[in-house]
């Protein structure tokens, strides 16, 4: 199936966004994301990845351009609670900072928040909470307060809060940032499993090592352009060292060679050959 004939979930045409009308975060983004896709948005700090996810989730209206989600124009979603709820029934968002996502006194309350806002019956809410907690393997943390959790536990609980609504699309903003390797591996496995469950998963990251496990398609954002500068499958993108250097995803003296981490033990300023 080509991109042209896939059923689109999100379609962005010339979307730009600037904070306070002065600080550009995205510039003229054209993008289509299809049903069932596992997309990784790869980019350095400040390239607009988080802003893009918030636009996809209807939390920010574009400063210019047009965005459609499930065929509906999202430009006025902020003024239409019914449309907002309709969108969020189908799209789950996991924020980069889990402390923002976990705002209730206990993990259980946090996971139940979404299903309750959907107006579901209490038995249904209870069932969905239990299922989300089980999927993320945090059942034993249900009665804990968020400040009693470690970073990895918070992240898993945060994903459970989004999963409890059973959304068709999951937007994950740097889900493995600041986590230790073991926790990161567990999360990568969980994200891959969500993809296998048929959900569309859009993940932003700048950690190259997790990309092959979770990406069907990789879109690289330029940190100066603030728009996609390349896209392709994980192998093609990760093998393009020039592209990764240009997008500020690797440094000339600290980067991957093929799939192996490689660090030069020197720091001279001149260029040299990378055999």
């Amino acid at each position, binding site marked *: 199936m080509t991109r042209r004939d896939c059923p689109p979930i999100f379609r962005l045409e010339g979307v730009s966004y600037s904070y306070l009308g002065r600080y550009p975060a995205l510039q003229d983004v054209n993008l289509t994301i299809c049903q069932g896709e596992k997309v990784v948005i790869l980019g350095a700090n400040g390239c607009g990845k988080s802003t893009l996810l918030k636009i996809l989730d209807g939390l920010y209206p574009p400063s210019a351009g047009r965005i459609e989600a499930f065929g509906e124009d999202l430009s006025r979603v902020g003024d239409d609670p019914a449309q907002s709820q309709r969108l*969020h029934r189908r*799209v789950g968002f996991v*924020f980069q900072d889990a402390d923002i*996502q976990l*705002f209730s006194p*206990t993990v259980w309350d946090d996971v139940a*928040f979404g299903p309750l*806002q959907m107006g579901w019956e209490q038995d249904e809410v209870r069932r969905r909470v239990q299922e989300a907690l089980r999927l993320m393997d945090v059942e034993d943390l249900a009665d804990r307060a968020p400040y009693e959790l470690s970073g990895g536990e918070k992240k898993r609980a945060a994903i459970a809060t989004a999963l409890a609504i059973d959304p068709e699309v999951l937007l994950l903003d740097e889900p493995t940032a600041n986590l230790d390797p073991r926790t990161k591996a567990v999360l990568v496995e969980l994200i891959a499993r969500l993809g296998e469950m048929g959900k569309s998963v859009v993940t932003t990251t700048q950690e190259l090592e997790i990309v092959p496990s979770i990406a069907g398609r990789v879109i690289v954002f330029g940190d100066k352009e603030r728009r996609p500068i390349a896209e392709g499958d994980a192998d093609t993108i990760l093998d393009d060292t020039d592209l990764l250097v240009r997008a500020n995803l690797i440094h000339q003296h600290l980067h991957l060679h093929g799939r192996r981490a490689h660090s030069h033990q020197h720091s001279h300023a001149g260029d040299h050959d990378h055999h």
Partner: protein
Amino acid sequence: MTELAATQHPAHKSRPAPGAFVARTVTGITGALERNVFSVENARLPGVLQQTDPRVKLVSILILLAATSLARHLLVVIAVYLASLLLARLSRLHLPTFARGVWLGIPLLGAVVAIPSLFLLPGHTLIATPEFGGMRLAVTDSGVSSAAMLLARVGTSVSLGALLILTTRWADLLKALQVLHVPAVFIVVLGITYRYLFLLLHTTNNMFLSRTSRTVGQTSGFEQRRWIGALTGTLVGKSLKMSDDVYQAMLSRGFAGEIRTFASFRARDQDRLFLGLAAVFAAGILLVDRSMM
């Protein structure tokens, strides 16, 4: 490491440089809040009150508080206080710590109100000062009994309140307020405030630590005040950003302006028995109180 563990790191307990009274005050307030508000150790003990439905516990404590306020005799108030100690014991709280926590603060607060009544109420003189300018101060028997009654009432009420707070997680206590018909939106806002108060305290502590790590020698009072001003501004900015982010997190989970909550408590026979015993005890001591003249 969890946030709780991080804020309880020994470095947080280190004393700031002498003169850094603001830093000491903030650290002290943070420590006290963490110990008393956020600590869940007591609430997790397998005691009687911990296993009682929070709504039943809340109503029972309110009944006992009402009885304490309505009682006219010191002995009756002391009986309620002894009952609160018994409940503390049955709830596996450390009694000396519990009693000390209650009574250490009361002389300070209670004395302000109680001391004038020692001298102002008419009655038989017990002790009197020598005449001074044609006037003298006298402590009367009714003044002493009134001050004792006041202190006993305050001490007993604080003990009952402490029992409720120490043996109930804040999350459950907030939910229990529903039984008093407190609006759901108020309870949710309180819950969110409580949650982010902790995060803000954590940030404040870290900012103090970060400043301490970069400060050599002593700083002047002016510099400290200037820094506190900057800190306050930064915290206000962070709070605003955080509230905006939390609102977005709520929207992204389907919040459409109307808060919906989950009522998950289920009262059991032992809860009904506890409520009954509290009501009978309160009614009993009030009957005794009224029969004593």
